[in-house]
């Protein structure tokens, strides 16, 4: 079957498609979340060094992964929007930013809640923590820049440039624990090396990461639908839709 992808690049056709996809991703997110929480709390053993406090890993690491992944995906959409002058791509970038910022904040706060009992400090200016804080500022900067420019197409272009320049920070976060001596522990999972943690711990972490992935897709689709409605407020398809579907639920 040949799919005409360009058909879906117009907000008018993508809006209902996104609406159909949201419940499925929400369902997957809930399923992975229940399984992930069960493994995290009922199955995964106590850590021999950190006791039960290590269980923070099951939200901290997936949140930190998502904070970086979302940034790269956001920058890719923004770059695509810039290169092809495609408004839907720019809207996707805009829809991802707040979710990325939330996961960055969660990674920082849960890290702090883990650092206090283990290191004795809520915060240290080490390379991993500092570069993750810069990531939060990049997200906030992107959102502030976009909302400060009235013309949405110009806002898209300015935001895209900021997003693309900021990508340089992502490998810095990822490799910070290798490049510098940090208080933060090394990577939980290394490519090309056998995992050092118990299999059930790893499974719990991966399930939670999958749940966060699915959640992110569902929420980003919800937000991109809002952005479409707001930006195309005067377009006929939005007016017709608003009369036809007044509750706006989903």
């Amino acid at each position: 079957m040949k799919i005409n992808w360009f058909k879906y690049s117009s907000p008018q056709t993508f809006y209902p498609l996104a609406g159909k996809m949201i419940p499925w991703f929400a369902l997957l997110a809930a399923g992975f979340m229940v399984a992930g929480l069960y493994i995290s709390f009922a199955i995964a053993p106590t850590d021999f060094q950190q006791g039960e406090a290590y269980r923070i890993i099951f939200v901290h690491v997936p949140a930190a992964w998502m904070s970086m992944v979302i940034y790269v995906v956001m920058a890719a959409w923004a770059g695509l929007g810039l290169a092809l002058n495609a408004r839907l791509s720019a809207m996707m970038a805009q829809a991802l930013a707040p979710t990325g910022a939330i996961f960055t904040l969660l990674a920082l706060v849960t890290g702090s809640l883990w650092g206090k009992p283990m290191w004795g400090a809520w915060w240290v200016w080490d390379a991993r923590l500092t570069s993750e804080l810069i990531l939060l500022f990049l997200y906030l900067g992107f959102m502030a820049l976009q909302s400060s420019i009235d013309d949405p197409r110009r806002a898209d272009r300015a935001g895209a440039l900021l997003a693309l320049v900021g990508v340089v920070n992502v490998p810095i976060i990822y490799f910070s624990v290798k490049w510098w001596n940090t208080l933060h522990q090394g990577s939980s999972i290394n490519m090309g090396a056998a995992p050092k943690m118990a299999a059930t711990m790893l499974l719990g972490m991966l399930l939670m990461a999958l749940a966060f992935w699915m959640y992110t897709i569902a929420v980003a689709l919800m937000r991109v639908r809002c952005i479409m409605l707001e930006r195309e407020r005067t377009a006929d398809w939005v007016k017709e839709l608003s009369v036809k579907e007044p509750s706006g639920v989903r």
Partner: protein
Amino acid sequence: MQWASWSAFFNMGGYAFYVWFSFGLTLLCMAWEVLALRKRSTQALRLSRLLAQE
């Protein structure tokens, strides 16, 4: 099962505050984000409906 009792589970080996704060905040943020987006969508549709009726 890792836990001798429910109270042992809630106590989290003495780290209850740190563990439950982390998970609680994460779930709270997610719930808030979803509710906020639903509200935003309803408001956007309401405004468009007003525009359509003009």
